[in-house]
């Protein structure tokens, strides 16, 4: 695993969609001797496709096959289980590689910033998503599903994922790759109503029509609006609304004509600004105020046992990397990390760490191409810098979970799933992953 001294070496930190697409764009450029190391803190690749995409969206996960094709490109090396800041420092990487591309995502959930937010029962939506998807970081999370009503704050697609997983019938979830611990907990869930709350109106959500449409067909569940939250004008699209936004508004307008008839409900509520969460030792209610532009005035209290905040994410600041606090990303210009407006030589960024948490999986392809173009344009300058692997990088490479080892983990997970009638049963702890990487036969 030692480096060829004359090879051009690029490290990409983070094996999620943007890391893969950037690697692909770099390797497609056909540069002789180019080696791209895809460094991932977990032993397994695919980032939010594995740990963010909801288990009941199996078609989206088919994009994994594209990542596996990219992983097989000559010149690409997967180095799993290597954590930036623990196993290697950024300085190690900078001295070992001509170029470092940060594809580290938006790992930090934004907080509501209201009193009571730290009561047990109030969670970041991202923690719930990681938990039901079997992320090792969330395997010990606990969600109290004993109250009938849960509140999800935020009007984006992650809020819809959370609501859908809480409301979807068990016999449907059982056939997905949802983590076993989540399935067990959800089987005992008493949640019957999820209220999805936002501070603006039906014409100003970030829901995509495809995700809203799923609530029209969700078995045993009504999608509803509250009559006090809207007037006929609430469904007028804003002047700059595109076809997608108009379709989302139409779907919400359709929900406004529904009457409750089924055992479970998803209620979309509008013009409610979070003010506080209250309860004795745990969440028992959430309080809202109505902004001046709301159709009705006054305050509102919703009794509930769970609150999920889905109000955005930001990149985790990294030591030695300039940070754009306003945007919550690593400071950059079209993928080049910048310090006081000037490019930092040899340091780049892609994906959510570059442009914030927005877009679809494929947005990362265009984003990765743009970052790769910046790297390729700078290559004559980057090549001149002498690099040699530091001891920490060499040691990390020795211990890393490589592509063959990941494929053994993958096969073991698929086999565990088959035994349970699921497409996959993920390993949720790092030791189990590493064991499967070593002992495929035993795991199968």
């Amino acid at each position, binding site marked *: 695993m030692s480096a060829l001294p004359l090879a051009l070496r690029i490290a990409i930190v983070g094996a999620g969609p943007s890391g893969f697409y950037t690697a692909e764009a770099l390797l497609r450029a056909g540069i002789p001797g180019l080696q791209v190391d895809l460094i991932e803190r977990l032993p397994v690749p695919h980032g939010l496709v594995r740990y963010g995409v909801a288990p009941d969206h199996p078609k989206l996960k088919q994009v994994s096959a594209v990542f596996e094709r990219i992983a097989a490109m000559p010149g690409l090396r997967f180095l799993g289980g290597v954590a930036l800041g623990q196993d290697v420092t950024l300085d190690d990487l900078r001295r070992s590689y001509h170029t470092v591309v940060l594809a580290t995502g938006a790992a930090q959930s934004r907080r509501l910033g209201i009193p009571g937010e730290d009561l047990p029962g109030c969670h970041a939506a991202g923690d719930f998503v990681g938990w039901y998807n079997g992320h090792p970081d969330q395997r010990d999370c606990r969600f109290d599903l004993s109250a009938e009503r849960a509140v999800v704050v935020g009007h984006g697609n992650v809020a819809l994922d959370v609501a859908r997983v809480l409301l979807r019938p068990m016999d449907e979830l059982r056939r997905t790759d949802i983590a076993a611990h989540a399935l067990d907990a959800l089987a005992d869930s008493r949640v019957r109503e999820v209220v999805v709350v936002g501070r603006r109106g039906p014409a100003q959500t970030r829901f995509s029509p495809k995700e809203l449409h799923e609530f029209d067909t969700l078995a045993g569940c009504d999608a509803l609006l509250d009559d006090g939250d809207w007037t006929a004008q609430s469904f007028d699209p804003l002047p700059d609304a595109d076809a*997608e936004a108009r379709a989302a508004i139409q779907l919400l307008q359709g929900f406004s004509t529904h009457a409750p008839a089924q055992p479970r409900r998803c209620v979309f509520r509008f013009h409610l600004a979070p003010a506080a969460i209250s309860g004795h030792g745990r969440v028992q209610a959430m309080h809202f105020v109505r902004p001046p532009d709301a159709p009705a005035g006054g305050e509102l209290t919703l009794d509930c046992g769970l609150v999920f905040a889905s109000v955005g994410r930001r990149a985790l600041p990294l030591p030695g990397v300039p940070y754009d606090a306003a945007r919550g990303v690593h400071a950059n210009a079209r993928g080049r990390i910048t310090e006081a407006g000037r490019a930092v030589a040899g340091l780049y960024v892609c994906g959510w760490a570059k442009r914030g948490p927005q877009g679809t*999986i494929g947005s990362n392809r265009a984003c990765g191409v743009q970052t790769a173009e910046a790297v390729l344009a700078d290559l004559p300058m980057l090549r001149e810098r002498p690099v040699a692997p530091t001891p920490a990088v060499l040691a990390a490479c020795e211990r890393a979970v490589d592509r063959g080892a990941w494929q053994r983990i993958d096969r073991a997970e698929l086999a565990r799933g088959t035994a349970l009638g699921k497409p996959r049963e993920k390993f949720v702890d790092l030791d189990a992953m590493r064991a499967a990487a070593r002992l495929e036969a035993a795991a199968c």
Partner: protein
Amino acid sequence: MAYVVTDLCSGCRYTECVTVCPVECFHVDERMTYIDPDNCIDCGGCAPICPVGAIHADFLLPADKKEWIGVNRERAALTPVLTQRLPPLPGAPALPQGAGA
């Protein structure tokens, strides 16, 4: 379901869609692009980025555009995959600055 390119693409063919497709499921001929419905993973990335609004989820297609579901399937089977943006067709109206980006 799948996403569907409709006749609004015909004659323009800006191909912004191709840059954001995570699975390279766009095909192309001399007039327009088509989505291979068997490869489309329903991510929905292409619909909002199309400068002329030619792409829709199949369940959102108006009745007079439903025929394009079949056209996409048939033409995708007969035409090559497109992996990179092409220049728009000569007759395509110029886009406002920043549109589609």
